């Protein structure tokens, strides 16, 4: 859908640059006629089309790709609104500054000392990396809502930029998290992320806390997709008839090793689950592990509204994203 401007009364289509704001009202330049703004299917005659060539020219390839995907999920009809662009463009700049600050802090590393919040900050960075990596991976692999994946990446940037200079320079966890930040961006903005990656690799004072995780000799697009840490706690969700009743935090390595029957007995020990089942016979148990992200067990009991079940599965997935 394209942002469309029409003259009130006649319905004549006008171009955006022929419209101006007078007070709170939109009017046509020159005539002063009142203008109504709507969203309509793009077409030449309505002067509301977005030309990809123009966009590539104005913003470049990677920003065009990011702007196309950000804010709206792939399954909804896209409203083109340049008002949403600054957020994405600013974020790119914040990533750029993150590399600049990383290099600056590392160059001063010999003169820096760990502050007393160092451990606390490092733990926060560790948790943020896992949290946002889990979210973005889930979007890329299961829901395909890339707009949500982008907002997860933006979340990680926010966390990283809270770090103090000593953490940026001396923390192996910061280095790991910054690597994950850049790798996650690679599928959407390959040129820009490659440049960030080179800036990252060229920075002196490499720590390489988890050897083998970062392939330092390989270009960005050949990096392996990162994994959440074994000890990071993921959600194990318990559902009854497609409704979330409760959830447990389980370390990734443990969650991956649980069998369906393990999970079933864990869930049946939870009073929130048993009270919802309410002694009704269980007719089906669905278990799904989303590797590195979460797992969900769903008990289907007799007397549930069978018809609404199928769609609720999907609704649940959509909500999760």
């Amino acid at each position, binding site marked *: 859908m394209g942002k469309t401007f029409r003259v009130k009364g006649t319905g004549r289509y006008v171009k955006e640059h022929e419209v101006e704001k007078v007070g709170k009202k939109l009017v046509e330049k020159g005539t002063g006629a009142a203008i109504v703004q709507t969203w309509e299917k793009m077409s030449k005659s309505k002067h509301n*089309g977005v030309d*990809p060539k123009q966009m590539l020219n104005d913003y*470049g*390839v990677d920003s065009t790709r990011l702007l196309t995907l950000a804010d709206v999920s792939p399954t909804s009809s896209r409203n083109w609104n340049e008002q949403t662009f600054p957020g994405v463009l600013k974020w790119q700049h914040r990533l750029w500054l993150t590399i600049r600050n990383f290099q600056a802090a590392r160059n001063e590393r010999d003169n820096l000392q760990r502050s007393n919040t160092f451990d606390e900050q490092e733990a926060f960075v560790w948790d943020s990396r896992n949290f946002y990596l889990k979210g973005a991976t889930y979007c890329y692999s299961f829901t395909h809502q890339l707009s949500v994946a982008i907002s997860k990446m933006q979340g990680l940037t926010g966390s990283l930029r809270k770090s103090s200079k000593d953490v940026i320079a001396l923390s192996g966890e910061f280095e790991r998290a910054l690597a994950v930040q850049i790798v996650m961006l690679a*599928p959407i903005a390959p*040129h820009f992320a490659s440049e960030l990656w080179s800036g990252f690799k060229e920075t002196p004072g490499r720590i390489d806390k988890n050897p083998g995780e970062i392939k330092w000799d390989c*270009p960005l*697009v050949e990096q392996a*997709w990162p994994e959440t840490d074994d000890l990071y706690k993921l959600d194990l969700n318990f559902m009854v008839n497609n409704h979330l009743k409760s959830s447990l935090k389980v370390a990734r390595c443990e969650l991956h090793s649980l069998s369906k029957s393990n999970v079933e007995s864990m869930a049946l020990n939870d009073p929130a689950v048993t009270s919802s089942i309410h002694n009704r016979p269980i007719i089906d148990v669905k278990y799904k592990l989303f590797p590195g992200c979460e797992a969900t067990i769903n008990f289907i009991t007799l007397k549930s509204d069978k018809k609404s079940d199928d769609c609720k599965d999907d609704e649940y997935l959509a909500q999760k994203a």
Partner: protein
Amino acid sequence: MSCCILSRKLHVFKQSTFSFSILRTYCSKSLGLWNNDLDESIKKKIEEHWKHKLKRFRYDPEDNKREKFYVLSMFPYPSGKLHIGHVRVYTISDSIARFHRMQGKNVFQPMGWDAFGLPAENAAIERGVSAESWTSDNIKTMKDQLMDLECSFDWDSELATCHPGYYKFTQDIFLRMYHAGLVYQKETLENWDPVDKTVLADGQFCENGRSWRSGAKVQKKPLRQWFIRSTKFAKSLYEGLDSPILENWRDITKVQKHWIGECNGTVIEFPISGSGDDNTLSVWTDKAEHIARSKFILLAPGSLLDRMYPGEMNRKLNIEATNPITGEKLPIYVAGKLDEEDTSAQPDCKLGIPDASVSDREYARLFGLTVDESSPLLADDLEERDRICARAASEGIGGHQVSSTLRDWLISRQRHWGTPIPIIHCQQCGSDSSRETDTMDTFVDSSWYYLRYTDPRNQEMAFNKESANKLVPVDIYVGGKEHAVLHLYYARFVSHFLHSIGWLKEKEPFKRMLV
């Protein structure tokens, strides 16, 4: 020395891995502009710098270690330039493909051109260029635009449906359907677009009766047309929507089920007598076991025979149909719905069995036929129903399960720029013959392109079964919502057909739809 020149020079010494590692280190340096603020000019410098250094990925058919992942995006019509909807679809598809590569999968992401169709013919008329050169120019421009977007397509598998190397296999698949008894010609009342001068399929015009393409008011016109008996697969296509291999289809399942309709009846061909030609009438019934007790045939207003023999409502036509099971002649009536409040679609042509259906009894009274009011309605007999259907199927006169509203696939188009229907008409061998001039609906071209991608240069077969079955079903299919009905239905139909002749292992072609 710029990296590109170095790269070219090193190309000569391909065997030297040492040189390559130097090249890689050299090339992966950043531009070092970190102290500048990121503006559009720096972004463009970055893109210029990385454009030729990003690795070109391609699917490796020899690799049996990595899991395959087939990312398909709906191929574009080469209209001249990409629009923003294309940019969105191909960026989504490319981002997903790149993600799965980083997850260690052997990703296949091909691209091609849905290149037959009307705009090329119109352009040819307006500008005096050939449809072919107009199309190939557009392909070139749009391919450059896709390259600019840095989409990592497997360009080695590129195809265009208008190339003889492609469409001869569209024809090949058509002929295989012909030999499987799925192709027939029939005079029917069709939706005629008076501006584009062609027939339109159901769904190619909107609710107000205007063509999607030309905007012209669609007319009804009797024409002898080619059909594919897609309804024969209706039940398989309906049930396939519950296949466990489909992931998260959500409302697409509903849209498809609505289109196909619940397969609660069957269609049987009844020869028509007195019409002066050899046409048959496709009659729908949900009580085939009682076919011997049928007393009349009911036509919906507006159907072909109603137009050919016009008159008032609730009338009897001067032609008769022959019951293929009993040989009995049956009268044909035209009537609307009994209950005007009823919002369900009326079948075009339905068998009237007053002994087995309340509404048929009412119709019989309306038409003044004798009805034995005292006898109770005949009960359903599913065993006998199966027997009658099987008999009809073995005689080649229908018998397959289908909903009351689904029609066969009309593929005839009176156009030049399309896949020619590969049929030669002749009275008898050796006599004068004429080549069919109709071409196929472009939905036929696009119903199997994802299979051709797996083996695009094969000139012996549409595709090698082994290489195709390694790659399909497609893992994720990205595209526009507007293709979730017809295109998807036809592609699924062809896949079910190719499965039925042993070409495909899996019936369903697409695991996950992202529209």
